[in-house]
């Protein structure tokens, strides 16, 4: 009984995340088949493929959903002295440590790639996953970027040339859980929107769990002994709902020219850097 109530509640909340606050017509969201009193089909084995929508839960404006930078003591991270020093060089344009729009040094605001793990931890939107015999390809809406997770048994490279999105290998922990390990990430990226830092020693673990036919959950753990005294969970079972295979994923692309226009009209005047 409790399970049914919980399932209905989850379905209702998921439904409402797509509902505008006023009675305007929603033009974009295509609902997947499940309605509140229909039990979803069982999870297929070894299959996380599909077009997956986290609703607005993936936007994560204050930092990762399980560890936002909101000033609460339970969300204070176990920084090393180096970690705290690095954090203080990052000037985010949102959250409790926010600076004015014209003062931020958030690389993503200037259209640098998000990289891993930030692609999971900020503006995570409709995500498509494809499985090939040798790898799993993840296609992200924000930045319209993709990454490959190798499933051919290779190890992570030792001493690799850094990449924005690092190097990823993955395997099935059980029939419904795909676990990804990533290393070799470029130090220029921030972990999240709040400006949490990472070093070249960062290891990211992502667990994709196929709960049932229509539901995927993502858990992300950050492990960087140079910046944090212990690993911490950034996303804890973030819920994705399966979309129909003909779903058209929007473009969300950071355009430097659009950003320059925004700064001219809004960002600089808002920061007192001169009126229009």
């Amino acid at each position, binding site marked *: 009984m409790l399970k049914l109530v919980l399932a209905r509640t989850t379905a*209702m*909340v998921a439904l*409402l*995340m*797509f*509902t*505008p*606050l*006023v009675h*305007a*017509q*929603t*033009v*974009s*969201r295509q609902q997947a088949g499940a309605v509140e009193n229909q039990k979803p089909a069982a999870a297929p084995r070894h299959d996380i493929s599909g077009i997956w929508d986290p609703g*607005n*839960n993936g*936007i*994560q*404006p*204050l930092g990762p959903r399980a560890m936002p930078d909101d000033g609460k003591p339970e969300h204070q991270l176990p920084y090393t002295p180096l970690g705290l020093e690095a954090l203080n060089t990052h000037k*985010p*344009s*949102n*959250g409790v440590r*926010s*600076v*004015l*729009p014209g003062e931020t040094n958030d690389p993503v*605001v200037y259209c640098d790639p998000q990289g891993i793990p930030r692609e999971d931890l900020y*503006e995570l*939107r409709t995500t498509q996953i494809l499985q090939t015999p040798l790898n799993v390809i993840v296609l992200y*809406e924000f930045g319209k970027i993709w990454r490959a997770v190798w499933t051919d048994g290779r190890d992570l490279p030792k001493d690799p040339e850094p990449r924005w999105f690092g190097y990823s290998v993955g395997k099935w922990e059980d029939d419904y859980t795909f676990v990804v390990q990533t290393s070799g990430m470029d130090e220029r990226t921030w972990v999240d*929107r709040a400006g949490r830092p990472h070093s070249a020693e960062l290891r990211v673990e992502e667990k994709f769990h196929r709960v049932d036919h229509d539901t995927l959950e993502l858990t992300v753990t950050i492990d960087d002994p140079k910046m944090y005294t212990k690993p911490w969970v950034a996303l804890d079972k973030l819920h994705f709902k399966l979309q129909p295979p003909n779903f058209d994923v*929007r473009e*969300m*692309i*950071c*355009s430097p020219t*659009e*950003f320059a*226009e*925004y700064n001219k*009209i*809004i960002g600089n*005047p*808002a*920061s*007192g850097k001169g*009126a*229009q």
Partner: protein
Amino acid sequence: MRNKLTTIFLGLLLVSVPLFAHHGAAAYDTDKKTTMKVTVSEWFWANPHCFLKFDVKDDKGNVVHWALESSNPADMVNLGWSKETFKPGDQVTVTFMPVKNGNPVGRIQNVVLANGQTLSARVVF
């Protein structure tokens, strides 16, 4: 029954929403809401934020060029907005948070269109 549940859940969602949108509120006077009846000059549907431009005459009769931002197109579409929501010349009533420094810039909270329809610009997280 479903409508009642909808109202309750919407209420809960509204309560749990952080005050500022995901592009920061440091510049804005978040306690202050200003409402103006304006004639649209331009509507930009673009990342990182959409923005609405209009001109207003001040007390001395000088034209002041205003610009109000909203969230990005992906968010706005989910709230019922589109690149067609405004045309130059549309007469609308807009409610917004002004910037603290007094420049003619702000962030839209909601708009009442010429046809009477109200659109909220507040993204629900």
